[in-house]
């Protein structure tokens, strides 16, 4: 509770206030808001087109969602999807490498790719007046890229260098080790989306060409366009992408991950002043009936600024810049992790406190916690989806996860129906404090024994990630 004081203050510092104190204002009820509904149509080749008209949004956001899950990659050359996607804008059959990028950038366009386990997105941002020309170039990159040997080989080398950079960063190294532990190692989800060094180094130009030929195509694809259009977006989309065909396109079912065995891992980083910690397990996806309840529980445990974890570990103890509980929903299944970094001297105490706090057996979630979480999720939605980028990104996410167009509205309604008992029950059915996987990246000399003494007797110490 916030302390309130009497209405008049004569003891305030001299000079600051000239009139009496005002009581804390109440919050006026929120205006009803709904996620925008797309206009849906199909291009003549079957690509599902979703148009969001958003007045005042002068930068158009286009997301082409391709039905290319990462488990379409052959196990020996994982990373091939990433190399393929990254080489798309290095030149097309009509425009060589430098020329292509120059044309696109002259239109003021930004081109990007985003690979997730359930599909590949190719993304274009461009001022509305340049959409026509930019989408034409975008379509060229997707449908007829050169994928030249030299470009593919360079992207393989750059990806290998990128992995080195990631492993040298303790937060990234912790997340990489965490996914490898939480998911069953036979599943694609256990390994980096961009591929691991052993398989990336096996990716050849032929393999990239074959991957594009076999998997890139209009079947199962959706194009999301959002913004304040200067011309009819359906005509533009049809002209640029409506005639794309690939009769050889192979579609692959998305692989559902399964849990890996519980583990405790310490990756040595000699001399590190901090340790990065991930503590979590296998989780659920957005279609699970417990999703709304676990979202609220997770916010109360480690999402809000004064969440149970952050209130103690940051605001009371000063052990960390911030600790969070994150949910990582996949197409089916997922993961959750409590993550933070702590100075070496207090890591073990932070872990002990975390283990106590995440046990809610004697501390069920309160109606205040549930109300605050609902108010937060409800309140941030209108702004999050007020831009072309925000709407298109969410719509594409929904396509990949197999969710309906009114998912945001439905999920907010579901959140509002969650009771404290629901939140506690869902949390307890998913978070089993004694069965969580632990990953620490830190100074093993100082940390290994005390972590074992905490009860992680099976702690496995690994050498530094970066040789």
């Amino acid at each position, binding site marked *: 509770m916030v302390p309130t004081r009497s209405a008049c203050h004569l003891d305030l510092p001299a000079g600051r206030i000239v009139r009496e104190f005002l009581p804390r204002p109440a919050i006026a009820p929120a205006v009803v808001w709904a996620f925008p509904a797309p206009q849906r149509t199909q291009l003549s080749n079957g690509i599902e087109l979703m148009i969001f008209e958003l007045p005042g949004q002068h930068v158009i956001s286009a997301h082409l969602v391709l039905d290319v899950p990462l488990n379409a990659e052959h196990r020996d050359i994982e990373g091939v999807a990433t190399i393929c996607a990254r080489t798309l804008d290095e030149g097309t059959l009509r425009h060589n490498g430098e020329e292509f990028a120059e044309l696109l*950038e002259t239109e003021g366009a930004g081109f990007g790719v985003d690979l997730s386990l359930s599909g590949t997105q190719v993304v274009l941002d*461009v001022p509305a007046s340049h959409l026509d020309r930019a989408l034409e170039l975008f379509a060229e990159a997707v449908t007829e890229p050169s994928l030249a040997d030299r470009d593919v080989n360079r992207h393989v080398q750059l990806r290998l260098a*990128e992995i080195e950079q990631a492993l040298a960063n303790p937060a990234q190294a912790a997340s990489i080790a965490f996914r490898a532990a939480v998911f069953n190692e036979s599943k694609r989800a256990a390994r980096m989306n961009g591929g691991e060094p052993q398989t990336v180094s096996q990716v050849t130009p032929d393999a990239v060409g074959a991957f594009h030929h076999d998997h890139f195509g209009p079947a199962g694809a959706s194009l999301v366009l959002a913004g304040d259009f200067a011309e009819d977006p359906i005509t533009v989309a049809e002209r640029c992408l409506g005639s794309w065909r690939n009769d050889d396109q192979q579609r692959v079912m998305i692989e559902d991950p399964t849990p890996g065995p519980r583990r405790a891992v310490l990756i040595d980083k000699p001399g590190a002043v901090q340790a990065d910690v991930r503590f979590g397990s296998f989780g659920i996806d957005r279609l699970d009936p417990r999703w709304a309840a676990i979202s609220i529980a997770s916010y109360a445990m480690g999402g809000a600024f004064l969440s149970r974890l952050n209130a103690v570990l940051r605001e009371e103890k000063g*052990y960390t*810049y911030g600790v969070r509980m994150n949910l990582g929903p996949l197409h089916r299944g997922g993961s959750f992790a409590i993550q933070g970094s702590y100075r070496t001297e207090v890591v073990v105490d932070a872990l002990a406190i975390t283990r106590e706090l995440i046990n809610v057996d004697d501390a069920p979630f309160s109606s205040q916690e549930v109300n605050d979480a609902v108010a937060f999720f409800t309140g941030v939605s209108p702004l999050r989806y007020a831009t072309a980028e925000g709407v298109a990104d969410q719509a594409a996410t929904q396509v990949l996860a197999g969710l309906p167009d009114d998912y945001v509205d439905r999920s907010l309604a579901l959140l509002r129906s969650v009771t404290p008992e629901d939140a506690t029950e869902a949390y307890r059915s998913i978070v089993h404090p004694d069965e969580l996987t632990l990953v620490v990246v830190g100074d093993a000399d100082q940390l290994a024994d005390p972590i074992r003494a905490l009860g992680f007797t099976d702690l496995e110490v690994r050498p530094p990630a970066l040789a």
Partner: protein
Amino acid sequence: MWGMTSGALSKLGYPIVEHTLENGLRVISSPDHIAPSVAVNIWYDVGSRDEELGRTGFAHLFEHVMFQGSAHVASGQHIALLQAAGAVVNATTWFDRTNYFETLPTGGLDLALWLEADRMATLLDALTQENLDNQREVVKEEKRQRYDNVPYGDVMELLNTLTFPPDHPYGHTTIGSMEDLDAATLEDVHSFFQRHYLPNNAVLSIVGDVEPEDAFERAEIYFGRLRAGRKPGKPDARPLEPLSGMPRTEASDKVPADVVYFSWRLPARGSRDFDALDLALSVLGHGQTSRLHKHLVRGTEHAEGTGASAMGLIGGNSFGFSYARARDGVSPEQLEQEMSELIEQLVSDGPTDEELRRAKAQFERHWLHELARVDSRADALGEYATLHGNPHLINSRIAEITAIDDDELQSAMQQWFRPDQRATLIYRQDAS
């Protein structure tokens, strides 16, 4: 519906209405009814450049203390109350400013203004040694997490030191040093607050689903009761000459690749010369068609990554830098030589028409993105009102950038951006 061609959006028309309260607080309103949300943003005209010797990092530490409660708000409750009203809340500190902001459903506007006013008025009432010590630890964890425990985390500090004299307002980083953070006292917090956190040293922007008259009335209710103070003087902002003597330094650590960094002193933001150099750095190192990427990543394949950027600052000079990360087997000396030649070429021949057009088009997209969201638009309004005294500039930035011609660009480069006006940092892989 799409009959209108937006054409070149060189003249934007975001509505901007200004009003100054009697106590000097500048209030800016920009109504936008796209969503039932409002962004509240306060820029205080104080940043790390205002710090005293021996107190580096203090402006940022102070920003943390601002969340530890005030006369009518308990510690941590500023964010907790706002989040429970559906707000996204944060604050940042940089060389030239400290900004505090929240975006939330319009029904929470009064709460946001009340909370901001309460801490502007009565922060010191709630200040305790315990709160200060706790946030000192939190800030030290932030420094470890973002700078000390990550590869290349000290680059910013090394480049600052190379580019500005140690006693210059930009000669140290915003995060500061552990020693100085340890040295900060309650008295420092008191005097910093009394000196800088004044209604007449702040700009309040209210952007979103609220009309200007309404915004001004509410600002008056909550902030009108605060008294003005003496506006603090600003640190010495006389422009320094471009760097001379080609200062250089080396660092080594367990990093995955050798990296070469160049830095330059540039003119202060708000000048055509700065805008011209911003474009020049974009041509040099922004995006796939930039010269560094084209020649070093794609061409010779000697670099795994390159970049260049201008960081606009208001106090006499700005800061510009470029970098290239070496591929395995390429020496940083070789990369340095190649970077230097590319820059020399750019300075002597200037960019091509196409390159200049691309740099301007990329700026346009970036700027439109910036203004598309009510929260970042509120921040831009505070920025241009605080640093340039004119929030309306956000509507003319694209036109200003578009108007820069090749001659201006060349003359700005000749004056500020020659290879011999750079500082060099070589960051080496520690082999041990």
